[in-house]
């Protein structure tokens, strides 16, 4: 009972990225329908579909759209977050390369809903081929008259910074600045890009919109759970037999995804742990995978759906080493604006590094937990809270593995102290 493929329905077509290929698979049929709808009716339809943001935060999309001030006189911007960067996630790359017109059609409809005449698509700088594919699709959409008649798209390349996937960091970057997140409120829907009301949506989220208009909110809502409609694209990687993108209902369980879709653990090995929603999601043990993958299901399990990047670890994987790799990422990508994040991410990386190198100390684990907890919730954006997820969960759920390393280091300590003072 694999879910019907919606977002990925044409991925096997060699011409899926072209205008003709998109039309042949039913593309650009929702836009005329949406043009006959009042903007408020589009917002209501998307609300009723229970579409939730698929970039990480899981916020209800229609509700976000409804925050644009009514009767706003000046410009309103639609910004697409294609700054895919969450470790373990690669779905938006597939959409940009294989179905760019779905994003364009979704943007046309979303722009009508929020009364926007200009959309910006912010694509991470490393995504050169996706950027070329999407830019070609934009040119074709202009030539075909979909764009340029009340709605224009500007394609903008990022320049290498994970934090620009945070919506206010993205806005800063789009404005020609370093990608520092901004304090909220004001929320972007009130004062966003270039000071104007702005909606920032993820690529995959917007690619769902044409299907919602075509087939109705009730159909979409029925694909998922009570609080989240539809399918989503799971990026599955790590120690699995068949890594890749899997489009499934948000009601699928993590166990089904790993064993029934991705072919189980590499070499029939034993599962040890899974990161269910990109590296910022708290880790789950092998005993915790009977959980549905919707936003609320994973929240209730103490982790998050995030970007649906599923990273599988088997018994060959060292959890302390995995945490060190993740901690290096957060230390590198902290934008440096808020002191708790800037300092703690660096400290915690150094501590995890020395633990893995065999120079750990007995107090190190509690130091990491203490530093992590003190900083949580004190920063401008969610980046540090995202780092705290792995810091705390890796240590709490696999503490004995960390302690084996620190105790071994303590046992070897006298010799090391003499050497270090030599």
């Amino acid at each position: 009972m694999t879910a019907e493929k919606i977002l990925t329905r044409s991925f096997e077509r060699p011409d899926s990225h072209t205008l003709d290929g998109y039309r042949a698979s039913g593309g650009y049929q929702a836009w005329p329908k949406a043009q006959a709808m009042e903007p408020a009716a589009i917002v209501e339809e998307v609300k009723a579909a229970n579409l939730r943001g698929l970039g990480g935060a899981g916020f209800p999309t229609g509700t976000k759209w409804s925050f644009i001030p009514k009767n706003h006189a000046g410009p309103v911007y639609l910004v697409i977050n294609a700054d895919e960067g969450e470790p373990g996630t690669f779905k938006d790359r597939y959409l940009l390369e294989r179905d760019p017109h779905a994003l364009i059609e979704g943007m046309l409809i979303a722009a009508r809903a929020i009364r926007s005449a200009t959309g910006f698509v912010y694509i991470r700088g490393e995504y050169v081929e996706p950027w070329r594919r999407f830019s070609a699709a934009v040119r074709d959409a202009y030539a075909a008259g979909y764009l340029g008649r009340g709605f224009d798209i500007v394609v903008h390349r990022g320049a290498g910074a994970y934090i620009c996937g945070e919506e206010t960091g993205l806005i800063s970057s789009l404005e020609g600045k370093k990608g520092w997140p901004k304090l909220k409120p004001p929320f972007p829907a009130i004062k966003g890009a270039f000071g104007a009301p702005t909606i920032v949506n993820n690529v995959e989220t917007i690619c769902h919109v044409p299907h919602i208009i075509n087939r109705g909110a009730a159909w979409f809502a029925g694909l998922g759970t009570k609080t989240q409609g539809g399918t989503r694209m799971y990026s599955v990687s790590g120690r699995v037999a068949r890594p890749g993108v899997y489009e499934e209902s948000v009601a699928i369980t993590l166990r089904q995804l790993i064993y029934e879709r991705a072919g189980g653990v590499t070499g029939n090995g034993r599962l040890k742990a899974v990161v269910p929603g990109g590296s910022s999601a708290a880790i789950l043990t092998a005993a915790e995978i009977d959980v549905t993958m919707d936003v609320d299901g994973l929240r209730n399990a103490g982790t998050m759906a995030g970007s649906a990047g599923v990273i599988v670890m088997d018994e060959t994987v060292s959890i302390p080493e995995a945490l060190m790799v993740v901690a290096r990422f957060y230390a590198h990508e902290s934008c440096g604006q808020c002191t708790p994040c800037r300092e703690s991410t660096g400290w915690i990386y150094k501590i995890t590094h020395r633990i893995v190198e065999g120079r750990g100390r007995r107090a190190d684990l509690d130091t990491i937990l203490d530093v992590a907890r003190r900083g949580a919730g004190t920063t401008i954006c969610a980046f540090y809270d995202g780092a705290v997820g792995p810091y705390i969960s890796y240590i709490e759920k696999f503490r004995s593995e960390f302690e084996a390393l620190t105790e071994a280091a303590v046992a070897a300590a006298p010799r090391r102290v003499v050497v270090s003072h030599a």
Partner: protein
Amino acid sequence: MSGAGSISNRPPAAQAGLTDPATTNAATTNPATPTFSAEQLAEVRRLQALYPDARGALLPVLYMAQDTFGWISLEVEEYVAGLFGLSPAHVHEVVTFYTLYFRDRPGRHVISVCHNLSCHLAGAPSIIAHLKRRLGVEVGETTEDGRVTLLSVECLCACEAAPMMQVDDRYEMNLTSAKIDRLLDGLA
């Protein structure tokens, strides 16, 4: 020439090239004396007009500058600042914030190996070790012949094909030592 000395108190407009037609036709590709051609300056103006505030075009124009001059020197920063009426300090702050602007001349090819979690689980450390051996450089260095700069980077979001790396514009996936050797042999 040191950057500190080159950042003067001249008003940005005087450095822009926009105010002096003579300089617009004298394009150079030298990062020490950067000048865009007339066509490139027209492209700068086109990009600036795409945004509600012209400075939105700063990242794209920095890419143009890097493509033209090879890397973003302090002189290039100052030149680009002039094109936007921004302070060189603002442009420096932007250039140093992002990883894709080079502040020194890179090799003719740039290899960026992903070292994040999924690639790490798939053997990225041994991929990096193999490249270091083959190229005779450490991560962050360029081969003596200027052919390749080796970097290790955070998640490039191609985890389904780990271990992977980016070679210039291309993603190279499912790496093995043999595949890397073939790729290196193909780099001029």
